[in-house]
């Protein structure tokens, strides 16, 4: 049972890390427009 004293803080740290990654992805604009890109396939320009 004493392992929980280590594992729970570890879990919390991992959640914080995951949230950090999520925010980096959001701020990078990955989720800004989920619809337009499917229409852009025939476009020549990037």
């Amino acid at each position, binding site marked *: 049972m004493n392992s*929980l*004293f280590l594992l*729970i803080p570890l879990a919390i740290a991992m959640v914080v890390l995951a*949230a950090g990654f*999520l925010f980096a992805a959001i701020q990078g604009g990955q989720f800004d427009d989920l619809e337009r890109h499917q*229409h852009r396939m025939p*476009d020549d320009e990037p």
Partner: protein
Amino acid sequence: MNHWEVYDQLLDQVSQSLDDGRREMLLRVEGLRCRACVRRLERALPPGPVEAQADVASGSCLLNWDPACLPLSAVLQAIDDAGFRPVVLADDASRRTARDERRAALGRIGVALLFGMQVMMLASGEYLGEIDPVLRPLLRHAQWLLATPVVLYAGWPFLRQGFGALRALSPTMDTPVAIAIATAYLASAINTLLDTGAVYFDSAAMFVLLLSLARFVEAHGRTRAAARLRLLAGAQPLAALRREQGQLLEVPTSALRAGDLLVVPPGAAVAADGELICAAAALDESLITGEAVPRERRQGEAVCAGSVNAGPLPLELRVSSAGARSVLSQLTRLMQRAQLAKPRAQQLADRIAGRFVGVVLLLAAATGAYWIGSGAELGMSLQTMLAVLVVTCPCALSLATPMAHAAASTRLAREGLMLVQVDALHAATRVDTVCLDKTGTLTTRRMRLQEVRTLSALDADACCAVASGMEAGLNHPIAQAFRDACPQAPAIPSRLDGVQGLRAETTDGVWHLSRLPSTTTDCAGAIHALRWLELSRDGRPVARFALQEQLRPGAGAMVRRLREMGLEVVLFSGDGQEAASGVAELAGIAGAQGNLLPEQKLRRLAALQAAGHRVLAVGDGINDGPMLAAADVSIGLADGAALAQAHGDAILIQDNLEAIAVLLQVARQARRIVVQNIGWAIAYNLTLLPLAMSGALPPWLAALGMGGSSLLVTLNAQRLLGAGGSGHLPVPLVRAAQT
């Protein structure tokens, strides 16, 4: 001194001046979530000098105020003080705000999901059985730690809105939710510190997660409805190439004046309305008309701002009107006004929802008091109260109508029909007769010279040249048809002779060009929808011309679909009975009435209405004004530049009449969906309220029910978008907005 004062200097760039000295502007208002918010916002502004129409569905507010009485900065400050954040729309800023809002919402959902999952996992121990007293403080402190970002970050919008509204003594739908979240969180924190009782961190986290998800879907529906609008607003480029003393200079669009010469490179958008100077150009006007095929424009023709140069060469134009007076701006404003208008059905729902919140708060307090009074455990009483607070939120009720209307107008916009009067959607459900005008409505304004029959020695080309020359100075479909057939003919000075004839005197003699009375001509009935003209010299006929009218695209399909829906279609025309019947037969209409003056059309329409029919009138809006005004619902047709003068409850901007049948279908469907939504919302609240009060409903289930209910109403409305309902626009439009 406040930081809004900068907008007093930018007044011309952010707002538009109206005839009576007042100004109008569209404002994005953050924090506008429900109908009670709208009332709070409207109440915060002084009613005389400021008129505000706020709209939940698009999160915006149309301001109409008198700058002489009240500076803009004071209006903005008042909105700010009421607990909202006004965002002044200056071209690009609105899109950036929308993007940031979406990012923030996603971040909140992410935090609620990631941290909430951990909280629930740690909380599950206590549900399963007795916890080791050594481990319990650890588990609870960990839950507390993990639940704090969920409540304070992800739940912040609810807390801020809810308690802000409570302070202003006009509780909104967020108020019960905010009270529930705060109570659950604080009670748990105290119990953790004292190491007694139960903790509800998991309930609090669950509320926030489910509510954020429901809000996000709502906001997404809202964004879709506003997508076309934002695209329109952003389509006008911010800078343009102006020709000044032989050289090209890049100038801001705001600096353009009428008379400027502009050069538009291939693929770029036109910055201002103008007149084409170069010989010909292909223009992609899809943004304005929805028509994807580029349109040929010739020298001297009008070009709308926002259309894209689709040809391989740069084009040149002379600016006729720039900025807020351009067709594009007018169109945008028209659409904004339509989105902001409150339909009557919605006003009723608002009033009910507004009262409901007060009742919910009282019921929750009464429930809590009852359970404590009856000697129940404090934790149990608290849980019941939380469940009542959350389960009864009238969110679904107040979303029912606006979501359906937003989806319906998005669908119609895709069909090329712009809804100007929102109440028209309701009125259209009862329409049983459709009244069409002929020229310019059922048929295009363009006629074609089909046949020339010579009656003398003069050959066909010569006759054509004479007729064409006589019509040269006129701007009528017939004159246009001759011009198309014989563009090189020299103009012959002519004057009107009688009602519908032309007379010209040349060295060759006296020419008459007259319409043939359809009853006496021997060629009538040979081919339908032909109009005959006779050219005579010195009283002797020399030639007859047959002009063919062309049906607008979709006319036949529209009539067929209207028939299938059980509607009666009639044609009113100012032209002769023969011509009217011919066109009617082509389109498949049974009842055609010709030889009608505008007043007679109006009288026929009134007679139909007096006989108990509900009439939808379709006309080109310019000549049919009285008829359109008198009908129960009216649709005006507008081609490009004529848009600014178009009238009607709805305006057809795409050249396809089938959209009229779609309007009636969508209207009926929208009514069904609104009834379903309101029925669901009322049934839901009435069923779950007793359950929650009796304590049978745990708070997390209440949150699931409430979120799910809002979601259901929103998704139900999305059905209106129809097949392939992404609500998204074709690619060229997106590219146009980017250039």
